[in-house]
């Protein structure tokens, strides 16, 4: 009886608290720009989600330390998603109207990108998916609100094939070779498959598809197949614990790490540090940058944030691969905002629609990058109405047991291969959705 009363009391108290919470909708001061941050600091993908989230957060803090974008300070709010699509949608809905309205979302999840792609045009908030997301969304004529800046998975797969072709002494030498793609069995891992199939057709190599179920800690059967088939190359499309598990399994199977190539999400410190020496020789893509401890932006972050006790996360992780990816992703967002401000009013807050224009008309020059501290971290890029990706430079990096050695060759996706595929897939999407391609006049709006 007592317990029951207690319970009713608790229920009443909970209602009371929720009533108190409801009017907490914020009335923030003007002239701040709100950047929501969808993070995953818990769950199977946390090892990779945390450094990205730290970098993402630190860059906005750094911008505020520098005085904001033309004086407009930035507010950030994090929402934990655990990499689950429905939590991403919930966080999106929660944050999109807060602090005067969200400027841009960066889901860092391909599954989440698919869900948010349908919501962005309705809410008029652009999506940046730097180095991820749906590959056909680089076609800005159809995907008005998506920005897969710096690169897509088709670019990644294309670059990897180009690289192994070069290693083999020419793409024609790939004929008869076997390439196994070990991929996370989700929208993310399946993205590169159409391109790999196309390349397999072009060069006559045999493609073996080996899916790994979420979260990726169970790969014994997959590597048994690798042992049996002995592919000439293994491409790894993993994320979170799947990456380190794959490398451990490769060691256990005795598959040479030198023949393994990871995508840029499978090439960071958390993936290899558990196996350190045994992972020696493992290769992965480096999207623009690798670990950049000596770059000027990292030095600035350390001096202005971490030395003052204002930094996010451990100091020694500043400059690691995924931390840098977080920094760059945040920088692309603030630079889009700067471009939008130049058109719609310097020192004013911008709307999601103005932000979209800014992202579409970005031009990051060497001088611009140097002034931001990103000189040497990334190459120049520019976007346009139809090209929402910009330049897509990547290199190959190799783990030496302690750090990443970055190769000297810069690769870019082959437009002759990618272009028709992007257009065809985007057109199919438009046909399914009964959308029409944006008119040229729409580009200036």
């Amino acid at each position, binding site marked *: 009886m007592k317990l029951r009363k207690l*319970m009713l009391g608790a229920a009443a108290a909970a209602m009371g608290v929720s009533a108190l919470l409801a009017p907490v909708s914020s009335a923030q001061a003007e002239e701040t720009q709100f950047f929501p941050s969808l993070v995953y600091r*818990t769950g199977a993908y946390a090892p990779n989600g945390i450094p990205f989230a730290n970098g993402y957060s630190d860059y906005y803090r750094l911008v505020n330390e520098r005085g904001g974008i033309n004086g407009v300070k930035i507010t950030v709010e994090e929402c934990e998603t655990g990499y689950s699509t429905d939590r991403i949608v919930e966080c999106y809905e929660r944050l999109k109207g807060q602090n005067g309205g969200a400027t841009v979302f960066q889901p860092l999840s391909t599954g989440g990108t*698919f*869900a948010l792609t349908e919501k962005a045009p309705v809410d008029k908030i652009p999506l940046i998916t730097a180095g991820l997301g749906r590959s056909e969304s680089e076609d800005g004529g159809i995907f008005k609100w998506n920005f897969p800046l710096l690169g897509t998975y088709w670019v990644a797969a294309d670059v990897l094939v180009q690289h192994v072709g070069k290693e083999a002494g020419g793409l024609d030498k790939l004929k008869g070779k076997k390439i196994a793609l070990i991929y996370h069995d*989700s929208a993310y891992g399946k993205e590169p498959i159409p391109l790999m199939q196309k390349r397999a057709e072009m060069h006559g190599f045999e493609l073996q598809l080996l899916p790994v179920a979420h979260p990726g800690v169970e790969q014994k059967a997959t590597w048994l197949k690798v042992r049996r088939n002995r592919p000439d190359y293994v491409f790894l499309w993993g994320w979170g614990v799947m990456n380190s598990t794959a490398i451990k399994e490769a060691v256990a199977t005795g598959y040479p790490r030198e023949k393994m190539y990871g995508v840029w999400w499978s090439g960071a410190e958390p993936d290899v540090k558990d196996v350190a020496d045994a992972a020696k020789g493992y290769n992965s893509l480096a999207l623009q940058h690798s670990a950049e401890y000596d770059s000027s932006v990292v030095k600035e972050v350390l001096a202005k944030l971490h030395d003052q006790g204002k930094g996010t996360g451990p100091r020694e992780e500043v400059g690691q691969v995924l931390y840098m990816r977080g920094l760059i992703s945040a920088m692309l967002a603030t630079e889009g905002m700067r471009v939008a401000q130049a058109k719609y009013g310097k020192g004013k807050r911008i709307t999601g629609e103005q932000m979209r224009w800014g992202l579409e008309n970005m031009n990051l020059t060497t001088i611009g990058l140097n002034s931001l501290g990103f000189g040497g971290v990334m190459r120049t890029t520019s976007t346009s109405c139809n090209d929402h990706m910009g330049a897509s430079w990547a290199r190959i990096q190799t783990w030496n047991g302690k750090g990443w050695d970055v190769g000297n060759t810069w690769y870019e996706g082959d437009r002759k291969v990618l272009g028709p595929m992007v257009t065809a897939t985007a057109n199919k999407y438009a046909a399914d959705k009964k959308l029409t391609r944006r008119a040229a006049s729409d580009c200036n709006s």
Partner: protein
Amino acid sequence: MFYRENGQFKTNYKADQQIFAITQDRWAVLALIAFAFIGVPMMVDEYLFRAILIPFLILALAAVGLNILVGYCGQLSLGSGAFMAIGAYGAYNFIMRIEGMPLILALLLGGVCATIAGIVFGIPSLRVRGLYLAVATLAAQFFWDWAFLRIGWFTIYTPSGSVAVSNLQVFGWTINSPVEKYWFCLGFLTVFALLAKNLVRSAIGRNWMAIRDMDVAAAVIGIQPLYAKLSAFAVSSFIIGVAGGLWGFVHLGGWEPAAFDIQRSFQLLFMVIIGGMGSIMGSMFGAAFIVALPIFLNQALPVVGSWVGVTISTAGIAHAEFMIFGALIVWFLIVEPHGLARLWSIGKQKMRIWPFPH
């Protein structure tokens, strides 16, 4: 004292057999439904609609479906995620492959697909019971997860296996804004809950309950286990399938099989257990508890922390949310093993006899 049925005499069978025999109950429920349709949209903002109310309605619908199987017929199932997926992908295929397919018909046909799958995967229930059956239905979960990931035909060969729908409309009424989506889902839930409630009060529902309470005895008095069990599977998977279609079409908009993974099956089972087995109302309580509580905790914790001057990190909040949520489930199950629906009926009884305790 607050409400009594004194003086309400039933003079015909129809009046005696209605769902809510007490006048006050009937008016209260009608008022509640009217409030849900008219009152709620006037006072709720977009976030509550999209993040809490719409998922709540859809999952409540799925929980009603699962409750028919688990709560009324006593067949433990862990395949509900798969049946939701079949409903969603079925409806997707109907709407994409057939030009001019109306939305509601596509959703119902998705439900029909789930029904067929439900009957097929319900066949083991004729031989195995309890936990063994749960394992057998788990096979449905894994099989359909695999099928939607591997068989390109189901996803119309989209490159990454992720599908998306938009421009939903019913007879020219476009379902775009959160209010419209809310009404659409609420309409489905109202109709299906009413149907389910009537079904479980009918002969077929009594068959199910007889099977649940003791299947040998039920067979002895002339109830066919084959018919009763498979019909429970059919009805249950139909409703779950429709809920799956709504989840994909209305709530997510775009989805991949991971949206209907094993977690979803567990989530639905917890809703039924916490809400109350064998109660339509309980399914809704359970859904409200499971959908809203984690989000509530997630938002309340930082506020509570700020009152006492503590800033909790994002990860800390997520961890605390899991712990409190788990503890609450255990606590509820100890205090009221019959679920929230039981609390509801105790509360009603208390209101009737107030101020006397008995």
